[in-house]
């Protein structure tokens, strides 16, 4: 019975029973918290970049959160949580040593095999940087297997920039081409202003050998797709990670259905060329021009 009991200590027949995991560290910032977790049996989560877990705050409920660390780092894993609802608020306020529950990892992650020996373009809007951070770390940890690593990240304003230390390191790092932009600048801001399509216009991509991974709010995707297609990218090499309501993670509860697909199992990462055929993939609808 391999599906749910792939790690030791998980009774395979308890489909919705989480595994306890301990909060090893929590770094809270103004708008988000990065939480480092370790499973009770200290086993590795066994995830791929782009996958998500269902996180339980016992007594509050369970929510899906994408994993923002790479499996190449440690047996521990990190989640970035922005307090938006009942459960995420409780998680945001949790302390080191507290216990949560974990189910997963679930879903299809980024196409790390397709990306091999090709250039990787990561386009993040807002909290979409969290799952892409896992991919960026993964590529950097297997640097010789990949071509260029181009990261375009747009935050609404400077105070909402996530993973500041990482963003600074990527900006300095010679193995990453980092483009950071904010929609609305404040007085302190000296960087780039505007939406992510701005830097995308400037970047000189080798479109034949680039694979793009895009994560952001629904409204962002189609403008990014239009820009990438205008640059000559193959629609089969553009990947979107979609956000939907996930509850069960195993294609049963029905909340994440998108046309004939269950996003939690068949996604959340989809090829743009596949999404074009789905009437409910609002993210993929071409912008009116």
């Amino acid at each position, binding site marked *: 019975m391999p*599906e749910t009991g792939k790690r030791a200590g998980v009774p395979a027949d308890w489909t919705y029973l989480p595994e306890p995991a301990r909060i090893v560290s929590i770094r809270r910032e103004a708008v988000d918290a990065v939480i480092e977790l370790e499973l009770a049996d200290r086993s590795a989560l066994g995830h791929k970049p782009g996958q998500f877990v269902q996180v339980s705050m016992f007594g509050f409920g369970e929510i899906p959160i994408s994993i923002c660390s790479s499996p190449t780092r440690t047996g521990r894993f990190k989640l970035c949580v922005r307090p938006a609802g009942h459960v995420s608020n409780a998680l945001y306020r949790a302390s080191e040593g507290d216990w949560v529950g974990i189910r997963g990892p679930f879903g299809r992650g980024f196409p790390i095999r397709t990306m091999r020996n090709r250039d990787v373009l990561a386009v993040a809007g807002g909290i979409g940087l969290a799952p892409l951070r896992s991919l960026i770390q993964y590529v950097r940890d297997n640097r010789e297997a990949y071509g260029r690593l181009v990261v375009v990240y747009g935050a609404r304003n400077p105070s909402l920039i996530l993973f500041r230390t990482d963003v600074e390191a990527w900006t300095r790092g010679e193995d990453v081409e980092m483009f950071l932009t904010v929609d609305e600048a404040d007085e302190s801001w000296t960087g780039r202003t505007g939406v992510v399509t701005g830097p995308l216009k400037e970047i000189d991509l080798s479109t034949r050998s680039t694979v793009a991974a895009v994560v952001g709010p629904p409204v962002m995707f189609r403008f990014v797709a239009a820009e990438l297609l205008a640059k000559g990218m193959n629609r089969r090499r553009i990947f979107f990670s979609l956000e939907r309501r996930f509850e069960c993670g*195993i294609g049963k509860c*029905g909340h994440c259905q998108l046309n004939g697909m269950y996003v939690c199992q068949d996604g959340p990462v989809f090829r743009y060329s596949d999404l074009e055929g789905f009437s409910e993939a609002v993210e993929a609808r071409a912008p009116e021009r």
Partner: protein
Amino acid sequence: MMRDRSLPSYCVISPGSVLDFTAGILGKGPVMGPMVRPDQPGFHVFDRLRRPEDLVLEYTTTTMPPKKAFFPPTETVFRFSAGDPPNLTPVRGDPPWVLLGVHPCDLSAIDALDRAYSFPPPDRRWRHNRDRSIIVGVDCMPDEYCFCDSLGVSQARRPCDLFLTEIERGYLVETHTRAGGELLGEARTSNALGQDFLEAEHRRRQKALGIQARLSADPGRLADFLEAEPFQEIWEDIAARCYSCGSCNTTCPACFCFTMDDVFHWDLQSGERRRAWDSCQLLDFAAVAGGHRFREDRWQRVRHRWHRKFLHLYRRFGRPFCTGCGRCSRACTADINILDETNRIIAAATKGRGHA
């Protein structure tokens, strides 16, 4: 289950022996079956059977489907209490050991949920409950809402262990599985004779004649139609009448969406995770943390219901997730009739093509 070539086998049971048989199985564990609704005489409900004489085998379609035997409207999934690490105690389902008196449409719905919940990765709660239950089916008499025949389920037997058809001297019993045979084991039965089969066949024919309402295309063509055309005006027209109350989903035997939530006990140290049926017609069904509601417009949710039943799940599992039981039409607070609306879609799709 291994295929037994001697099955199905047939015998006859008298009404008196049905009572004895029911009394016998009641003594061995919880049994669920159709009985008169105490709050609404004339209507029937699947509930825990306490006395054999409460069982009603000649009943009109229940308000709520018998899927609740294996998938209760609300249930506890696990209990938790504070600890280092926290203590998590899974809570098993409490299925009846025998589910009695299931109509063919509802058998077909259980088959639909078997497929959906067994699709990898499986929902093991469903399987656990299903594996512990024996199902006894019974033939029905349709009303004006029933259109099971055009969905090919009016004679469904899967997944029942025993099936009863009323005849002059009691019931013709079909034994479909070994478990069914064992259950029947101690009941007083007699050999089925030619006359018994003729009566059962006559009754089946009468039933078929009684099902006047029909879907005007087969499910495969309906799926093609739904895939090919937007039918926007029809969805908007239905949505203009719909209240998004979710009664259609709540009464559907083939709906299987659910939501999970936690409750704290009074000590604030322990609690439980609950699972409850959910409805895709509710506004927040597809809402995400950022506030975006996928299918914010009512017509999108109405379309989703039809697409899911007759297109998406049809493609994935090879059958529509509607059995023609008519429960949603009976329950609809706005009198939206699933058959009439579906036939409207078919009519719109076939208009001018010369093959209605």
